């Protein structure tokens, strides 16, 4: 869209807003009239497994309940529904995994859990990163997980199963099973059963690839990447060996990243997932994990590399400079939530928010960058309970609901006789083996900035009491925050598949053809 005189734009914006009606929702507080600006770059950040309560708990923990995380300062807010569908059908599966959810926003289709870049019928679907790359935008994919993991993979690979990551092919990892336990026949499109690492190393979809997962790659992948012009940080191994090991590969380091200056860069900083920040902080200074960059480090560097890159693609919207599309994943929020590890999950949310801050600061200076912050799904039913109380799971017997027979539901609920409130941290007896150790089970307690000095994490005096409902994903909607031109489009209750269309329109200025 070309720049127009302010008066004309103001009139048009008012007309558009009036006609749109619901575009700016009540929970949105636009701080700028952003539709008039060119959108050159889109930065999409997601906290894997980060539900609404994860954000609130991290705010309480690090900022105090009256404070805000950076993501919460973004002016446009909304919610995202995340459900998947069952395979070979459109029937909803109410709880998604990371693969299905990432495919939804990357390609605009609902698909089955474990699917990467294919629809519910195993048909390959184009991804936004592929389309942006083909159109001449610079592209980046950053994660604290292995870069072959579901969330990054769904932007730059296609596989029938998320487990088909490599380094080698396996029927069990790459082919879905039929009801009788036998494997499906291999598809005609062999890409769909080619290990994801092999695809990433050859398709050139992302110009900047930063994260973990070195063990998935082999020396021939490094050779293929270098042949495409990638600056490869570290080493993928010794081509003379039949299989690579920890001894034969060299993970990239933050120092390598700081020096990187290629138009295309791949840096894999761990053979598996990157080290959880909480653990990294506790390691001695000479530990190799200390050489890993943070998610904020990787975000800043990828923005720098992508912003400096001069694109020569064929797509031209009449802009003076080609933009970029960058996806950034804070992966460990989910991984630690699966383990019901509130302490490390909170630290990972903070680390993710630091990455959001890096993107937000760039966007504010740039003026042509849309920043979107959301999650793929909630994990584990994370929640904040009142200090000194307990959860139903801890009860000696199922707590009764004294309002059960009251149609007006206006009496005072009471569970005084059926609970198992613990005088210390209320860890109850039905949690199973290990419940005697107060560190093992909830409520996990944490001090907040408002607590008096001397109040310790893990003590009953700490004001933030946290629990989990399960060890797996839940079907809860997740929050979304946006800043920048067209940010208001995300201030809505929406399906995760809609994110694809909205990002597509933001990048290309028009609707996706297949929608």
């Amino acid at each position, binding site marked *: 869209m070309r720049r127009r005189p302010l008066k004309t734009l103001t009139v048009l914006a008012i007309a558009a807003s009036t006609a749109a009606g619901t575009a700016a929702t009540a929970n949105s507080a636009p701080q700028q009239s952003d539709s008039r600006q060119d959108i050159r770059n889109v930065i999409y950040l997601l906290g894997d497994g980060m539900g609404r309560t994860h954000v609130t708990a991290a705010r309480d923990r690090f900022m105090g309940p009256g404070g805000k995380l950076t993501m919460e300062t973004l002016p446009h807010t909304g919610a995202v529904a995340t459900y998947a569908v069952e395979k070979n059908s459109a029937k909803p599966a109410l709880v998604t995994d990371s693969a299905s959810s990432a495919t939804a926003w990357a390609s605009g289709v609902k698909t089955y859990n474990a699917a990467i870049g294919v629809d519910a019928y195993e048909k390959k679907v184009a991804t936004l990163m592929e389309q942006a790359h083909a159109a001449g935008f610079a592209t980046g994919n950053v994660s604290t997980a*292995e870069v072959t993991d579901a969330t990054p993979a769904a932007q730059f690979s296609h596989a029938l199963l998320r*487990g088909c990551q490599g380094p080698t092919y396996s029927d069990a990892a790459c082919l879905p*099973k039929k009801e009788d336990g036998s494997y499906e026949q291999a598809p005609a499109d062999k890409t769909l059963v080619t290990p994801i690492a092999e695809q990433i190393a*050859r*398709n050139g979809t992302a110009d900047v690839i930063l994260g973990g997962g070195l063990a998935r790659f082999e020396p021939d992948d490094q050779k293929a990447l270098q042949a495409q012009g990638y600056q490869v940080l570290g080493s993928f191994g010794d081509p003379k060996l039949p299989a690579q090991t920890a001894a034969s590969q060299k993970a990239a380091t933050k120092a390598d990243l700081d020096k990187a200056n290629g138009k295309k860069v791949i840096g894999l900083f761990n053979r598996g997932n990157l080290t959880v920040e909480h653990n990294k902080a506790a390691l001695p200074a000479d530990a190799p994990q200390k050489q890993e960059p943070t998610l904020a480090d990787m975000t800043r560097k990828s923005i720098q590399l992508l912003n400096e890159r001069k694109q020569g693609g064929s797509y031209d919207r009449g802009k003076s400079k080609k933009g970029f599309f960058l996806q950034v994943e804070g992966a460990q929020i989910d991984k630690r939530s699966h383990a019901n590890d509130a302490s490390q999950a909170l630290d990972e949310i903070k680390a993710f928010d630091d990455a959001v801050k890096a993107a937000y600061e760039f966007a504010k200076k740039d003026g042509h960058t849309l920043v979107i912050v959301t999650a793929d799904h909630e994990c584990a039913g994370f929640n904040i309970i009142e200090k000194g109380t307990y959860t139903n799971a801890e009860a000696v017997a199922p707590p009764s609901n004294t309002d059960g027979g009251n149609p007006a539901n206006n009496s005072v609920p009471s569970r005084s006789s059926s609970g198992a409130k613990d005088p210390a941290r209320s860890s109850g007896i039905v949690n199973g083996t290990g419940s005697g150790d107060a560190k093992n089970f909830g409520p996990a307690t944490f001090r907040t900035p408002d607590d008096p000095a001397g109040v310790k994490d893990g003590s009953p005096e700490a004001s933030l009491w946290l629990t989990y409902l399960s060890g797996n994903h839940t079907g809860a909607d997740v929050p979304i925050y946006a800043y920048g031109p067209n940010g208001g489009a995300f201030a809505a209750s929406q399906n995760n598949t809609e994110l694809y269309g909205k990002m597509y329109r933001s990048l290309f200025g028009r609707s996706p053809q297949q929608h």
Partner: protein
Amino acid sequence: MTLTHLPRAAAAATAVAALLALATGCSDAGARPAAAKDPVPAASPVALPAPRSAPSPQAALSPAPAAGEVRVQQGPFTDRVQLTGLRLTASPSSSPSVTGHVAISSDISDTLALEITAAYYDADGRLLGTGSFHHQEEGEEAHAGHAPAQQHAEGPRAAGAGIDFTVPADGLTGTPASAVLTIPVLVNE
């Protein structure tokens, strides 16, 4: 409105439509800027080599392993697991197998997929055949039909207490005296 004003009005209407599309996120082909060219409508085919297979087991081990030895071949994931209680069972009354316990030592997330392969050798170090153990915990495959029980892990998660495994050896050409384990697949949540 005069005729001379129509082009401007039309342009304004087009701009409104474009703004509407941006504001609402609605699909609207009419909102396309004239200068825009079509981006790639579908995933571009990329020339890929045939998927790599895991290295084949050695046809012969020299010197031959000690009787009953279960050796672990170093590979992409062996630094991320702890294997304990490895034992080769090769009694005449039962099918040969390697049993043991595996726990993920480096990754702190759930284990979604794990494959352990055993190559079985005779007393002279000659390869007799192979078997594999598969473990799936999440995704479509985890909810679909399961492999035979002896090949599929049940019970606690590999990332927690770990899992006991049995690698069956069906169709060997002789009685195994030793085995070499490899881990070609390990996928964490």
